[in-house]
């Protein structure tokens, strides 16, 4: 079952789900939609895995933490923070989930893929060199990324 809720009901919905028997916290993740608009998802299930609920909501850049309700959310929230730069309010350890020197939030849309910058796009080839066309650019790659 999928529940779409308002961001203000994020904690309340999970508290109700826990008391309704959804005791397993399975995962929490997000999707970067536009510049300052994220969709955040959590999935909880019953102890026998027979039933689950996927909760999703739209947030701008921060949301309340779930660790008072589901302690298992702690790591997932840290991971989502590292990958997307979303802040979870009142989280006791809002740091990187994975220790690394790698900076940035790699799952954000504005994060430049290093491999794409280092690789030549095969689609730039024009079989007919005399045909005058505007050079085509790789889809989904920001113009400023190519150096």
């Amino acid at each position, binding site marked *: 079952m999928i529940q779409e809720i308002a961001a203000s009901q994020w904690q309340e919905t999970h508290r109700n789900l826990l008391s309704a028997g959804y005791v397993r916290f399975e995962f929490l993740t997000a999707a970067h939609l536009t510049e300052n608009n994220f969709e955040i998802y959590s999935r909880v299930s019953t102890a026998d895995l027979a039933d689950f609920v996927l909760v999703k909501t739209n947030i701008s850049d921060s949301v309340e933490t779930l660790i008072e309700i589901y302690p298992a959310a702690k790591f997932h929230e840290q991971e989502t923070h590292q990958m997307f730069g979303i802040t979870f309010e009142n989280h006791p350890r809002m740091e990187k989930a994975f220790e690394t020197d790698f900076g940035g939030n790699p799952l954000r849309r504005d994060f430049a893929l290093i491999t*794409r910058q280092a*690789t030549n*796009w*095969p*689609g730039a*080839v*024009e*079989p*007919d*060199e*005399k*045909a005058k066309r505007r050079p*085509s650019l*790789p*889809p*989904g790659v920001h113009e400023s990324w190519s150096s």
Partner: protein
Amino acid sequence: MEHKSIALHPSSCTSCMLCVRECPDWCISIEAHSEPDLESPEYSNSRRPSMKNVLDKFTINFGDCMWCGICVEVCPFDALFWSSTEIEPKPTAEHLILDQTQLTKFLPGAIRNDGTSAPQENDPPSGRRKK
């Protein structure tokens, strides 16, 4: 339909670059050149001869490919097909870059989306795909 490899019918390919540009993994590459189209009816009575692209090299890097099938869907000239022929294990990642001769070998197990079988190596180009 089994999706085990992607087959190419080289004589159908017009080097239009659509598959190369649509591939999200950038795993297809085409080397081609253009030359005057001698068979074109306008060739002899026009000041600028019509040109056609000639395919020199077509490769798919199956180390990068994620089997999304966008190239098969996007090809308007019926040159790319899903095939039920499995890609054999290779010693290194470079060996997974298959060129047109190797991709043609997948044609015997290849079928179109509508279930009809794909053209074989020596068949003539089937032209623009009918929608």
